[in-house]
Protein backbone atom coordinates (compact mmCIF):
# COMPACT_ATOMS: atom_id res chain seq x y z
CA UNK A 1 0.00 0.00 0.00
CA UNK A 2 1.19 3.48 -0.80
CA UNK A 3 1.35 6.07 1.90
CA UNK A 4 2.11 9.79 1.96
CA UNK A 5 3.73 11.28 5.06
CA UNK A 6 3.43 14.97 4.35
CA UNK A 7 0.64 17.44 3.70
CA UNK A 8 0.38 20.31 1.27
CA UNK A 9 2.56 23.32 2.31
CA UNK A 10 4.54 21.33 4.90
CA UNK A 11 8.15 22.43 5.34
CA UNK A 12 10.55 19.55 4.63
CA UNK A 13 14.31 19.14 4.89
CA UNK A 14 16.69 17.37 2.49
CA UNK A 15 16.45 13.58 2.78
CA UNK A 16 13.06 13.66 4.45
CA UNK A 17 10.78 10.83 3.36
CA UNK A 18 7.71 12.25 1.68
CA UNK A 19 5.90 9.14 0.55
CA UNK A 20 6.26 5.40 0.20
CA UNK A 21 5.01 3.26 -2.65
CA UNK A 22 4.72 3.32 -6.41
CA UNK A 23 1.36 5.14 -6.46
CA UNK A 24 3.19 8.46 -6.06
CA UNK A 25 5.58 10.11 -8.50
CA UNK A 26 8.68 12.20 -7.69
CA UNK A 27 8.40 15.75 -9.10
CA UNK A 28 10.70 18.75 -8.92
CA UNK A 29 13.41 18.62 -6.23
CA UNK A 30 12.53 15.11 -5.10
CA UNK A 31 14.00 11.70 -5.85
CA UNK A 32 13.04 8.05 -5.57
CA UNK A 33 15.07 5.58 -3.57
CA UNK A 34 13.67 2.04 -3.70
CA UNK A 35 9.98 2.61 -3.10
CA UNK A 36 10.28 5.85 -1.09
CA UNK A 37 10.21 9.43 -2.34
CA UNK A 38 12.57 11.86 -0.63
CA UNK A 39 13.12 15.61 -0.66
CA UNK A 40 16.26 16.96 -2.27
CA UNK A 41 16.02 20.47 -0.75
CA UNK A 42 14.66 22.54 2.12
CA UNK A 43 11.28 23.65 0.91
CA UNK A 44 7.52 23.50 0.88
CA UNK A 45 5.56 20.47 -0.29
CA UNK A 46 3.26 20.76 -3.26
CA UNK A 47 0.87 17.85 -3.88
CA UNK A 48 -0.82 17.77 -7.23
CA UNK A 49 -2.66 14.51 -7.69
CA UNK A 50 -0.06 11.77 -7.45
CA UNK A 51 2.95 14.02 -8.08
CA UNK A 52 5.01 15.35 -5.18
CA UNK A 53 7.13 18.43 -5.74
CA UNK A 54 9.06 20.81 -3.51
CA UNK A 55 9.26 24.57 -3.85
CA UNK A 56 12.68 25.46 -2.41
CA UNK A 57 12.89 27.98 0.44
CA UNK A 58 16.52 28.84 -0.24
CA UNK A 59 19.22 28.21 -2.75
CA UNK A 60 21.48 29.83 -5.29
CA UNK A 61 20.28 31.52 -8.45
CA UNK A 62 20.88 29.43 -11.56
CA UNK A 63 21.13 31.59 -14.69
CA UNK A 64 18.60 30.84 -17.44
CA UNK A 65 18.28 32.26 -20.95
CA UNK A 66 15.66 34.99 -21.09
CA UNK A 67 15.88 35.96 -17.40
CA UNK A 68 16.08 39.64 -16.58
CA UNK A 69 18.70 40.23 -13.91
CA UNK A 70 20.41 43.14 -12.20
CA UNK A 71 24.19 42.85 -12.32
CA UNK A 72 27.14 44.87 -11.10
CA UNK A 73 30.02 45.83 -13.38
CA UNK A 74 33.38 44.79 -11.94
CA UNK A 75 35.73 44.82 -14.92
CA UNK A 76 36.12 46.40 -18.33
CA UNK A 77 37.59 44.40 -21.20
CA UNK A 78 38.52 45.31 -24.77
CA UNK A 79 35.07 44.55 -26.08
CA UNK A 80 32.75 45.10 -23.15
CA UNK A 81 32.10 44.76 -19.45
CA UNK A 82 32.29 41.84 -17.04
CA UNK A 83 29.40 41.84 -14.64
CA UNK A 84 28.79 40.11 -11.32
CA UNK A 85 25.49 38.26 -11.63
CA UNK A 86 25.19 37.30 -7.96
CA UNK A 87 25.85 33.68 -8.99
CA UNK A 88 29.02 31.63 -9.01
CA UNK A 89 29.67 32.80 -12.59
CA UNK A 90 30.25 36.24 -14.04
CA UNK A 91 28.71 37.38 -17.30
CA UNK A 92 29.95 39.32 -20.30
CA UNK A 93 28.14 42.40 -21.61
CA UNK A 94 29.41 43.15 -25.10
CA UNK A 95 29.64 46.74 -26.30
CA UNK A 96 27.25 46.02 -29.16
CA UNK A 97 24.67 44.69 -26.70
CA UNK A 98 25.03 47.68 -24.39
CA UNK A 99 24.12 50.56 -26.61
CA UNK A 100 22.58 51.29 -30.00
CA UNK A 101 25.05 54.09 -30.58
CA UNK A 102 28.20 53.53 -32.65
CA UNK A 103 31.20 53.19 -30.35
CA UNK A 104 34.55 54.21 -31.77
CA UNK A 105 37.49 51.89 -31.21
CA UNK A 106 39.42 54.28 -28.97
CA UNK A 107 36.40 55.40 -26.92
CA UNK A 108 36.62 55.25 -23.12
CA UNK A 109 34.14 52.57 -22.00
CA UNK A 110 34.05 53.89 -18.43
CA UNK A 111 32.18 56.92 -19.81
CA UNK A 112 29.33 54.61 -20.81
CA UNK A 113 29.25 52.26 -17.80
CA UNK A 114 31.80 52.59 -15.01
CA UNK A 115 33.06 49.88 -12.66
CA UNK A 116 30.78 49.54 -9.65
CA UNK A 117 27.63 50.58 -11.48
CA UNK A 118 24.62 48.32 -11.79
CA UNK A 119 22.83 47.38 -15.00
CA UNK A 120 19.46 45.79 -15.75
CA UNK A 121 20.16 43.15 -18.41
CA UNK A 122 18.68 40.13 -20.09
CA UNK A 123 20.50 36.81 -20.23
CA UNK A 124 20.90 35.95 -23.91
CA UNK A 125 23.04 32.84 -23.65
CA UNK A 126 24.31 30.37 -21.07
CA UNK A 127 26.79 27.78 -22.30
CA UNK A 128 27.35 24.33 -20.85
CA UNK A 129 30.47 25.76 -19.21
CA UNK A 130 28.31 28.45 -17.57
CA UNK A 131 29.69 31.29 -19.64
CA UNK A 132 26.92 33.86 -19.54
CA UNK A 133 26.15 36.51 -22.14
CA UNK A 134 23.90 39.40 -21.25
CA UNK A 135 22.36 42.18 -23.27
CA UNK A 136 21.11 45.64 -22.42
CA UNK A 137 19.16 46.07 -25.65
CA UNK A 138 15.46 45.69 -25.07
CA UNK A 139 12.53 47.29 -23.33
CA UNK A 140 13.17 48.37 -19.70
CA UNK A 141 16.83 47.38 -19.89
CA UNK A 142 19.16 50.14 -18.81
CA UNK A 143 21.88 51.31 -16.51
CA UNK A 144 20.76 51.73 -12.88
CA UNK A 145 20.59 55.42 -12.03
CA UNK A 146 19.21 56.81 -8.79
CA UNK A 147 17.09 54.88 -6.30
CA UNK A 148 18.44 52.00 -4.31
CA UNK A 149 19.44 48.41 -4.96
CA UNK A 150 18.53 45.72 -2.47
CA UNK A 151 19.20 42.02 -2.40
CA UNK A 152 16.93 39.14 -1.45
CA UNK A 153 17.08 35.38 -1.76
CA UNK A 154 16.49 34.63 -5.44
CA UNK A 155 14.07 31.83 -4.53
CA UNK A 156 11.72 34.48 -3.12
CA UNK A 157 11.58 36.48 -6.34
CA UNK A 158 8.31 34.82 -7.50
CA UNK A 159 6.73 35.80 -4.16
CA UNK A 160 7.75 39.44 -4.58
CA UNK A 161 6.21 39.49 -8.05
CA UNK A 162 3.13 37.54 -6.97
CA UNK A 163 0.52 35.78 -9.06
CA UNK A 164 0.34 37.57 -12.42
CA UNK A 165 2.33 40.43 -10.91
CA UNK A 166 -0.26 41.17 -8.20
CA UNK A 167 2.23 41.70 -5.39
CA UNK A 168 4.57 43.96 -7.30
CA UNK A 169 1.56 45.97 -8.50
CA UNK A 170 0.46 46.39 -4.88
CA UNK A 171 3.94 47.52 -3.84
CA UNK A 172 4.14 50.03 -6.69
CA UNK A 173 0.72 51.47 -5.91
CA UNK A 174 1.18 51.76 -2.17
CA UNK A 175 4.70 53.15 -2.19
CA UNK A 176 4.65 55.19 -5.38
CA UNK A 177 7.97 53.65 -6.34
CA UNK A 178 9.17 52.17 -9.59
CA UNK A 179 10.39 48.66 -8.86
CA UNK A 180 12.53 46.48 -11.12
CA UNK A 181 12.99 42.91 -9.95
CA UNK A 182 15.95 40.88 -11.21
CA UNK A 183 15.56 37.11 -11.26
CA UNK A 184 18.90 36.87 -9.43
CA UNK A 185 17.40 38.48 -6.33
CA UNK A 186 18.57 42.04 -6.85
CA UNK A 187 15.80 44.61 -6.78
CA UNK A 188 15.99 48.22 -7.92
CA UNK A 189 13.60 50.56 -6.12
CA UNK A 190 13.30 54.21 -7.06
CA UNK A 191 10.98 56.88 -5.74
CA UNK A 192 10.97 59.22 -2.75
CA UNK A 193 13.21 58.35 0.21
CA UNK A 194 10.14 57.50 2.31
CA UNK A 195 8.57 55.42 -0.46
CA UNK A 196 11.80 53.55 -1.09
CA UNK A 197 12.16 52.72 2.58
CA UNK A 198 8.55 51.53 2.75
CA UNK A 199 9.07 49.35 -0.32
CA UNK A 200 12.33 47.96 1.03
CA UNK A 201 10.68 47.04 4.31
CA UNK A 202 7.76 45.40 2.54
CA UNK A 203 10.06 43.37 0.28
CA UNK A 204 12.09 42.21 3.29
CA UNK A 205 8.80 41.27 4.94
CA UNK A 206 7.77 39.23 1.90
CA UNK A 207 11.15 37.49 1.92
CA UNK A 208 10.77 36.56 5.59
CA UNK A 209 7.10 35.53 5.54
CA UNK A 210 6.77 34.10 2.03
CA UNK A 211 5.77 30.64 3.29
CA UNK A 212 2.69 31.91 5.13
CA UNK A 213 -0.87 32.00 3.82
CA UNK A 214 -2.53 35.27 2.84
CA UNK A 215 0.75 37.03 2.11
CA UNK A 216 -0.85 39.72 -0.06
CA UNK A 217 -3.26 40.71 2.74
CA UNK A 218 -0.40 40.84 5.24
CA UNK A 219 1.64 43.07 2.97
CA UNK A 220 -1.38 45.26 2.38
CA UNK A 221 -1.81 45.64 6.14
CA UNK A 222 1.87 46.50 6.52
CA UNK A 223 1.74 49.16 3.83
CA UNK A 224 -1.44 50.86 5.06
Amino acid sequence: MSEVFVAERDVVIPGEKLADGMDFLPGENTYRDNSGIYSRVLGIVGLSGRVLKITPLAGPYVPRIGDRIIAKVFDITMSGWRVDTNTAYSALLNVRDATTRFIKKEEDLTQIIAIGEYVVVNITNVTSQNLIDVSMRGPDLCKVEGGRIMSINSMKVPRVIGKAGSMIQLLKEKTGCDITVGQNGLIWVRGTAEGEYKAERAIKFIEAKSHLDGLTERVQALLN
Partner: protein
Amino acid sequence: MIIINTETIKGLAKDGKRMDLRGMLEYRSPISIDLDISFTAEGSAKVTMGDTVVIAGVKLSIEKTYGDTPDEGGITVNAELLPLSSSEYESGPPGIKAVELARVIDRGIRESKAIDLKKLCVKPGEKAWFITVDIISINDAGNLFDAAGLAALAALRTARFPVVDEKGVIDYKHKTDVKIPIVKEPLPVTVYKVNGQLMVDLTVAEEKAAESRLTVGCDAHGVISALQKGGTTPLSAVEIGHILDIAIEKSSFLRGVLDKFVKA
Protein backbone atom coordinates in the same frame (compact mmCIF):
# COMPACT_ATOMS: atom_id res chain seq x y z
CA MET B 1 27.85 40.55 -2.71
CA ILE B 2 27.60 43.71 -0.63
CA ILE B 3 25.09 46.12 -2.08
CA ILE B 4 26.33 49.68 -2.14
CA ASN B 5 24.09 52.60 -2.97
CA THR B 6 26.77 55.24 -2.63
CA GLU B 7 25.18 57.91 -4.83
CA THR B 8 21.78 57.60 -3.15
CA ILE B 9 23.31 57.70 0.34
CA LYS B 10 25.36 60.78 -0.51
CA GLY B 11 22.39 62.51 -2.12
CA LEU B 12 20.19 61.87 0.90
CA ALA B 13 22.93 62.85 3.36
CA LYS B 14 23.13 66.28 1.75
CA ASP B 15 19.51 66.87 2.81
CA GLY B 16 20.12 65.37 6.25
CA LYS B 17 18.29 62.16 5.38
CA ARG B 18 19.21 58.49 5.54
CA MET B 19 18.19 55.38 3.64
CA ASP B 20 16.36 53.94 6.64
CA LEU B 21 14.78 57.30 7.55
CA ARG B 22 16.77 57.53 10.78
CA GLY B 23 17.99 60.87 12.02
CA MET B 24 21.64 61.66 11.26
CA LEU B 25 22.55 61.29 14.92
CA GLU B 26 20.25 58.41 15.75
CA TYR B 27 21.39 54.92 16.67
CA ARG B 28 19.63 51.87 15.31
CA SER B 29 17.17 50.38 17.71
CA PRO B 30 16.81 48.31 19.66
CA ILE B 31 20.27 48.06 21.16
CA SER B 32 20.47 45.12 23.52
CA ILE B 33 23.15 43.45 25.60
CA ASP B 34 23.10 39.79 26.63
CA LEU B 35 25.41 38.80 29.46
CA ASP B 36 27.31 35.64 30.36
CA ILE B 37 27.01 34.08 26.93
CA SER B 38 30.22 32.06 27.42
CA PHE B 39 30.65 29.82 30.44
CA THR B 40 34.41 29.46 30.00
CA ALA B 41 35.08 33.20 30.04
CA GLU B 42 35.31 35.15 33.29
CA GLY B 43 32.97 37.71 31.79
CA SER B 44 31.22 37.94 28.45
CA ALA B 45 28.64 39.98 26.62
CA LYS B 46 26.82 40.06 23.31
CA VAL B 47 25.79 43.39 21.86
CA THR B 48 23.07 43.62 19.23
CA MET B 49 22.83 46.98 17.49
CA GLY B 50 20.35 46.75 14.64
CA ASP B 51 21.64 43.84 12.57
CA THR B 52 25.16 44.15 13.94
CA VAL B 53 26.09 41.50 16.50
CA VAL B 54 29.39 41.51 18.38
CA ILE B 55 30.51 39.37 21.29
CA ALA B 56 33.28 40.07 23.76
CA GLY B 57 34.88 37.81 26.34
CA VAL B 58 37.23 38.52 29.23
CA LYS B 59 39.83 36.00 30.39
CA LEU B 60 41.98 36.46 33.48
CA SER B 61 45.32 34.83 34.09
CA ILE B 62 48.30 35.24 36.41
CA GLU B 63 51.51 36.07 34.56
CA LYS B 64 54.95 37.41 35.31
CA THR B 65 54.99 41.20 35.57
CA TYR B 66 56.78 43.38 33.05
CA GLY B 67 60.20 44.72 34.00
CA ASP B 68 59.24 48.39 33.67
CA THR B 69 55.98 48.05 35.61
CA PRO B 70 56.75 45.54 38.40
CA ASP B 71 53.69 46.51 40.46
CA GLU B 72 51.09 46.41 37.70
CA GLY B 73 49.02 43.90 35.82
CA GLY B 74 48.09 44.34 32.20
CA ILE B 75 45.40 44.26 29.58
CA THR B 76 45.38 43.11 25.97
CA VAL B 77 42.58 43.38 23.45
CA ASN B 78 42.22 41.09 20.46
CA ALA B 79 39.64 41.31 17.72
CA GLU B 80 38.63 38.69 15.24
CA LEU B 81 36.33 39.34 12.32
CA LEU B 82 34.74 36.02 11.45
CA PRO B 83 34.37 35.20 7.74
CA LEU B 84 30.77 34.30 8.55
CA SER B 85 30.02 37.83 9.68
CA SER B 86 30.61 39.50 6.33
CA SER B 87 31.48 38.43 2.80
CA GLU B 88 34.47 40.79 2.99
CA TYR B 89 36.32 38.91 5.73
CA GLU B 90 38.61 35.95 5.17
CA SER B 91 39.93 33.44 7.66
CA GLY B 92 43.59 33.58 8.55
CA PRO B 93 45.74 36.19 10.28
CA PRO B 94 43.90 39.37 11.31
CA GLY B 95 43.48 41.92 8.55
CA ILE B 96 43.87 45.67 8.78
CA LYS B 97 40.28 46.16 9.93
CA ALA B 98 40.55 43.64 12.77
CA VAL B 99 43.87 45.12 13.92
CA GLU B 100 42.42 48.63 13.90
CA LEU B 101 39.32 47.53 15.79
CA ALA B 102 41.42 45.86 18.50
CA ARG B 103 43.73 48.85 18.79
CA VAL B 104 40.93 51.40 19.03
CA ILE B 105 39.19 49.47 21.80
CA ASP B 106 42.50 48.82 23.54
CA ARG B 107 43.49 52.49 23.37
CA GLY B 108 40.15 53.61 24.77
CA ILE B 109 40.58 51.42 27.84
CA ARG B 110 44.34 51.83 28.27
CA GLU B 111 44.77 55.58 27.77
CA SER B 112 41.84 56.55 29.96
CA LYS B 113 43.43 54.45 32.74
CA ALA B 114 40.06 52.73 32.97
CA ILE B 115 41.39 49.82 35.01
CA ASP B 116 43.47 50.26 38.14
CA LEU B 117 46.32 48.01 37.01
CA LYS B 118 48.13 48.35 40.35
CA LYS B 119 45.26 46.51 42.03
CA LEU B 120 45.88 43.57 39.68
CA CYS B 121 49.33 42.99 41.17
CA VAL B 122 49.63 39.79 43.19
CA LYS B 123 53.31 39.93 44.17
CA PRO B 124 55.35 42.96 43.02
CA GLY B 125 58.03 42.09 40.47
CA GLU B 126 56.78 38.54 40.18
CA LYS B 127 53.10 37.92 39.60
CA ALA B 128 50.07 39.92 38.54
CA TRP B 129 46.67 39.40 36.95
CA PHE B 130 46.52 40.01 33.21
CA ILE B 131 43.26 40.71 31.42
CA THR B 132 42.60 39.53 27.89
CA VAL B 133 39.58 40.90 26.08
CA ASP B 134 38.53 39.05 22.93
CA ILE B 135 36.16 40.70 20.50
CA ILE B 136 34.47 38.62 17.82
CA SER B 137 32.10 39.85 15.15
CA ILE B 138 29.07 37.63 14.66
CA ASN B 139 27.41 39.82 12.05
CA ASP B 140 28.89 42.97 10.60
CA ALA B 141 26.08 45.28 9.56
CA GLY B 142 28.17 48.36 10.25
CA ASN B 143 29.46 50.37 13.21
CA LEU B 144 31.62 47.63 14.70
CA PHE B 145 33.67 50.15 16.70
CA ASP B 146 30.82 51.36 18.89
CA ALA B 147 29.27 47.90 19.27
CA ALA B 148 32.65 46.34 20.16
CA GLY B 149 33.43 49.08 22.67
CA LEU B 150 30.09 48.53 24.34
CA ALA B 151 30.59 44.75 24.37
CA ALA B 152 34.11 45.03 25.80
CA LEU B 153 32.98 47.28 28.64
CA ALA B 154 29.94 45.12 29.40
CA ALA B 155 32.18 42.04 29.54
CA LEU B 156 34.66 43.80 31.83
CA ARG B 157 31.84 44.91 34.12
CA THR B 158 30.46 41.40 34.50
CA ALA B 159 33.81 39.64 34.86
CA ARG B 160 34.58 37.99 38.21
CA PHE B 161 37.97 36.71 39.33
CA PRO B 162 38.33 32.93 39.48
CA VAL B 163 39.28 31.08 42.67
CA VAL B 164 43.03 30.71 43.35
CA ASP B 165 44.33 28.09 45.81
CA GLU B 166 47.33 28.42 48.21
CA LYS B 167 49.76 27.17 45.58
CA GLY B 168 48.68 29.87 43.16
CA VAL B 169 46.83 27.55 40.80
CA ILE B 170 43.74 29.07 39.23
CA ASP B 171 40.50 27.11 39.40
CA TYR B 172 38.62 28.47 36.41
CA LYS B 173 35.54 26.40 37.23
CA HIS B 174 34.76 28.48 40.31
CA LYS B 175 34.39 32.25 40.48
CA THR B 176 34.76 34.63 43.41
CA ASP B 177 32.68 37.79 43.84
CA VAL B 178 35.66 40.03 43.15
CA LYS B 179 35.20 42.38 40.22
CA ILE B 180 37.81 43.92 37.95
CA PRO B 181 38.85 47.31 39.43
CA ILE B 182 37.25 49.59 36.84
CA VAL B 183 37.75 53.25 37.68
CA LYS B 184 36.58 54.86 34.45
CA GLU B 185 34.31 53.60 31.73
CA PRO B 186 35.33 54.86 28.32
CA LEU B 187 32.98 54.21 25.40
CA PRO B 188 33.93 54.80 21.78
CA VAL B 189 31.59 56.75 19.52
CA THR B 190 32.39 56.85 15.83
CA VAL B 191 31.21 59.85 13.87
CA TYR B 192 31.37 59.64 10.08
CA LYS B 193 31.40 62.39 7.52
CA VAL B 194 29.26 61.62 4.49
CA ASN B 195 29.03 64.26 1.79
CA GLY B 196 29.98 66.95 4.30
CA GLN B 197 27.39 65.86 6.86
CA LEU B 198 28.12 64.16 10.17
CA MET B 199 26.31 60.98 11.17
CA VAL B 200 26.57 58.13 13.66
CA ASP B 201 25.85 54.39 13.64
CA LEU B 202 26.31 53.72 9.94
CA THR B 203 25.29 50.62 8.05
CA VAL B 204 27.86 48.85 5.86
CA ALA B 205 26.58 50.60 2.74
CA GLU B 206 26.79 53.97 4.48
CA GLU B 207 30.32 53.24 5.68
CA LYS B 208 31.30 52.62 2.06
CA ALA B 209 29.90 56.01 1.08
CA ALA B 210 31.65 57.85 3.94
CA GLU B 211 34.62 60.09 3.32
CA SER B 212 36.17 60.04 6.77
CA ARG B 213 35.50 59.08 10.34
CA LEU B 214 36.66 59.89 13.83
CA THR B 215 36.31 57.49 16.74
CA VAL B 216 36.22 59.29 20.06
CA GLY B 217 36.61 57.45 23.36
CA CYS B 218 35.29 59.34 26.36
CA ASP B 219 34.24 58.51 29.91
CA ALA B 220 31.18 59.41 32.01
CA HIS B 221 32.49 62.93 32.72
CA GLY B 222 33.10 63.64 29.04
CA VAL B 223 36.87 63.34 29.39
CA ILE B 224 38.28 62.35 26.02
CA SER B 225 40.95 59.68 26.21
CA ALA B 226 41.38 58.34 22.69
CA LEU B 227 40.92 59.39 19.10
CA GLN B 228 41.22 57.48 15.87
CA LYS B 229 40.83 59.08 12.47
CA GLY B 230 40.03 57.02 9.39
CA GLY B 231 39.10 57.60 5.79
CA THR B 232 40.76 59.50 3.00
CA THR B 233 39.59 63.10 3.35
CA PRO B 234 40.75 65.48 6.08
CA LEU B 235 38.57 66.95 8.82
CA SER B 236 38.66 70.64 9.66
CA ALA B 237 39.08 71.98 13.20
CA VAL B 238 35.45 73.13 13.22
CA GLU B 239 34.27 69.68 12.13
CA ILE B 240 36.33 68.00 14.83
CA GLY B 241 34.74 70.35 17.36
CA HIS B 242 31.29 69.26 16.20
CA ILE B 243 32.32 65.60 16.22
CA LEU B 244 33.56 65.82 19.82
CA ASP B 245 30.27 67.40 20.92
CA ILE B 246 28.30 64.65 19.19
CA ALA B 247 30.57 61.94 20.62
CA ILE B 248 30.19 63.15 24.20
CA GLU B 249 26.42 63.33 23.83
CA LYS B 250 26.15 59.92 22.18
CA SER B 251 28.51 58.23 24.63
CA SER B 252 26.17 59.21 27.45
CA PHE B 253 23.35 57.65 25.43
CA LEU B 254 25.35 54.41 25.03
CA ARG B 255 26.24 54.55 28.73
CA GLY B 256 22.52 54.65 29.47
CA VAL B 257 22.08 51.48 27.41
CA LEU B 258 24.99 49.85 29.25
CA ASP B 259 23.58 50.79 32.66
CA LYS B 260 20.18 49.44 31.67
CA PHE B 261 21.53 45.97 30.87
CA VAL B 262 24.61 45.66 33.10
CA LYS B 263 24.80 46.50 36.77
CA ALA B 264 27.87 48.59 37.60
